[in-house]
């Protein structure tokens, strides 16, 4: 009772659990954890309404460090638990914490179907392009040729593109951010949390132990702005420290980086439109390091969530048939008296 009477202002600190955080020093996961803890208090919900569900992997230790409700579940299945929870308890803010192996390999099926259903969840995909917890094997997002303990001669496989995959599943919100860019990350998380339906945020995350150089200059705060396009709805895709580069679509309908100057001006560049799925698909083809990293909200549109659809059906059925009654359910067949 005492608890109910003291109005507790939710703070980042009050979201920290008493468990010692056990990621490797220098791991990108720390920054992601602290941004989530910073964003949640801004959402206007009490602490007890947050639930964090993870699968298996380094990042999936996350719920233990959050003083919210949480489940550290099984490999790849976090979206399935989150789905059951969101359906039966639509008022909660449910966060799925997953990695590239968890979401895109063992949990690939759940990843696409959760997005397709537009369940109201925030999926934070920690993409470090490697398996950390099992000590460094290549992952489904590892680049072709990636050398690891399980691919000493280089990975033969093509990587999967999570953004394109999410678009194929008709995602209603897709964004990307970078672990070392805390301010940007916080903004993206906030937008993701406010979106109704499945929000996917891909975080380029650094595994300092097994894939330290994956993000190259992106991880250098002095150099990174030459390699990042900060997507803004309605704005031309200009980037670079001096804002002297841009993205345009060429005659082959492919994206290319151009220098602004005599040959190309801002008018030649693509203008971002978060509602356009076609544009989002093109942007998904820009994968680091072949392209600068497109960060920000890639795609966002409004659509009915699964739970809204379900609640409407329930209301409709109850309006038509009345609230179910056991007696009539039992007798809903040919009956006879003896």
């Amino acid at each position, binding site marked *: *009772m*005492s*608890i*109910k009477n003291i109005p507790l202002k939710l703070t980042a600190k009050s979201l920290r659990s008493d*468990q010692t955080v056990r990621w490797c020093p220098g791991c990108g996961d720390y920054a992601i954890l602290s941004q989530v803890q910073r964003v949640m208090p801004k959402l206007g919900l*009490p*602490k*007890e*309404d947050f*639930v964090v*569900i993870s699968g298996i992997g380094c990042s999936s230790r996350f*719920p*233990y460090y*959050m*003083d919210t*409700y*949480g*489940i*550290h*579940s*099984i490999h790849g*299945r976090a*979206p*399935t*638990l*989150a*789905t*059951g*929870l*969101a*359906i*039966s*308890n639509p008022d*909660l803010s449910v966060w799925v914490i997953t990695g590239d192996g968890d979401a895109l390999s063992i949990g690939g*099926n*759940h990843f*696409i*179907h959760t997005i397709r259903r537009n369940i109201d969840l925030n999926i934070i995909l920690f993409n470090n392009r490697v398996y950390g917890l099992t000590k460094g094997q290549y992952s489904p997002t590892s680049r072709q040729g990636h050398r690891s303990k399980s691919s000493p001669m280089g990975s033969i496989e093509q990587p999967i593109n999570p953004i394109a995959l999410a678009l194929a599943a008709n995602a209603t919100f897709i964004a990307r951010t970078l672990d070392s860019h805390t301010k940007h990350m916080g903004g993206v998380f906030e937008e993701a949390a406010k979106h109704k339906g499945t929000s996917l945020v891909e975080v380029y995350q650094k595994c300092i132990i097994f894939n330290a150089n994956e993000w190259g200059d992106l991880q250098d705060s002095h150099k990174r702005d030459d390699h990042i396009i900060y997507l803004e709805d309605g704005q031309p895709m200009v980037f670079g420290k001096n804002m002297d580069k841009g993205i345009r679509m060429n005659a082959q309908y492919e994206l290319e980086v151009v220098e602004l100057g005599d040959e190309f001006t801002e008018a030649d560049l693509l203008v971002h439109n978060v509602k356009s799925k076609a544009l989002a698909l093109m942007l998904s083809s820009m994968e680091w390091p072949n392209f600068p990293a497109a960060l920000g909200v890639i795609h966002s549109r409004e659509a009915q969530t699964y739970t809204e659809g*379900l609640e409407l*059906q*329930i209301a*409709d*059925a*109850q309006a*038509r*048939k*009345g*609230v*179910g009654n*056991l*007696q009539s*359910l*039992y*007798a809903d*067949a*040919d*009956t*006879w*008296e*003896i």
Partner: protein
Amino acid sequence: MSDKYIVKELDSVVIRFAGDSGDGMQLTGTQFTNTTAVFGNDISTMPDFPSEIRAPAGTLAGVSGFQVNIGSTDILTPGDEPLVLVAMNPAALKASIKDLQSGGIIIANTDAFTASNLKKAEYESNPLTDHSLDGYELHGIPLTTMNREALKDIKGLSGKDKDRCQNFFALGMTFWLFDRELDTSTEWLQVKFAKKPILAEANIKAMQTGYFFGETTEAFRHRYRVRKATLESGTYRKITGNEATAIGLVTAAEKMGKTLFYGTYPITPATDILHNLAKLRHFGVRTYQAEDEIAAMGSVVGAAFGGAFAVTGTSGPGIALKSEAMNLGLMLELPMVIVDVQRGGPSTGLPTKVEQSDLLQVMYGRNGDSPMPIIAPTTPSDCFNAAIEAARMAIRATTPVIILSDGFLGNSSEPWLLPDPDSIPPIPVTHATEPNGEDGTFLPYKRDENGARPWAVPGTKGLEHRLGGLDKSPETGNVSYVPEDHAQMTAERLGKIAKLVDIIPDQEVYGEEDGDLLVISWGGTYGAVRSAVRDEIEKGRSVSHAHIRYLNPFPANLEEVMNKYKKIMVSELNNGQLAFILRGTYGIEVESYGKVEGQPFKISEIAEHIEEALK
């Protein structure tokens, strides 16, 4: 008229309708059953259909059958051997003739016995004319021709549509043979085809003509009467096991004051539970068709965490996929129910046929020491009770509970005396709302006297906590690798399941309390085994029957019961799974009599084995 035929009174009679899967035999059988049920007979039915939706017409693989046993006495099974077989084509005859009683009645549609159909059914000569059926009372009737003739004046229906009515012609004949009214089926047709009255008219006409054909033809030597059964008075309906499961789950949810979440993936023979529940949105039922079996189980764990009455339904191959998430449910110690409607295995096995071969799988088929309560319903309508009991156990021990049904129970039907919902006691659920530790902390694994842990639902202030699949410290639930912690938590998980024995009724025995032989069975074989033991007792044999409904934990007195007999025989539709568990649990000798043919036991098979065991 009575000089034309002799009326025979029977206590019970078994009839099988068999045809091509497109011939509407399930419908015909159901219509016959409804009419006899309304008349007041006790009934038990069993459909037998191919796993292909539409196997090639006329082939053995495409035969669809429906068997019904009707009686004036207590009917416990769909019957061993039909007295009457309605065969719509050669394949149907071939597939069923081995089961027919000698001297039984065959009504065969001669129009379908063409050279090509005979070949498809792998007949070398026409059985209707080659005297191979001389031991039966054979009625070759040109059903197709007669049906066409009967419907020739109906305008606005294609020849094909008219031919589709021939099952009702056959039904009408059968109604005549058993002296049944046409009212129930007539009404049903009128409602069913309210929007297409011409179809109702054609089917009714076909049925009436079939009936009058029975009346006017001199072919039938007998007409059969089965008196009303003396059943408890009240309102009855017919119910299958899958229907009863669905209705039981909805009832349990109401009795818990919760909404039902049913997360599942379509799989034969469990899918009808989903179909039945999907219609019940007005009960607030949240059915969720997941992308796979694994996701279905995950969603159930999530929904249980959120405080719903969370249930999934599947069959053996689905259990295989669900095992990991079932184990998570066990580790998180949340209440939930898993319905396994068993089918023939291993692997894809026999999807539409019955077997009880998932017992070891649900008992032991997960990594680690992973105890889950198992309850096995005994008859189709008992699935209703099992659903409610499973919910009660799940709440009491905060655990996943397994209902071990099977394809026979799921699809068979029997009369069900409608219960009064108010007479079903509530299932009290307590959710934690206050901290239970010192200094206002919440200890998610602090147990009550039954070994259950507090069920705190997200959204409850002050009780934020983390659960996970890693093993834990007692009380706090914090991740722990301490050896003693793992030993203690393992013991606590086992202990609370074992403690359910307190609410499980003692094992009852049918027959003498001691003697030469105790027959043990479980699940859907109840009717066959009980009937066989009943018959053998009547013959003066020293045999009793213990049908075990609770497979984990076993009833407290089970060992004591078993010790009173010189010999124990376990009859089950597998190669001795319960026998294996009984030997291991109690260190006693048991004989195993298993059957794995994808078919239920026949009463006669059990009887033979009883005689054998008593020698």
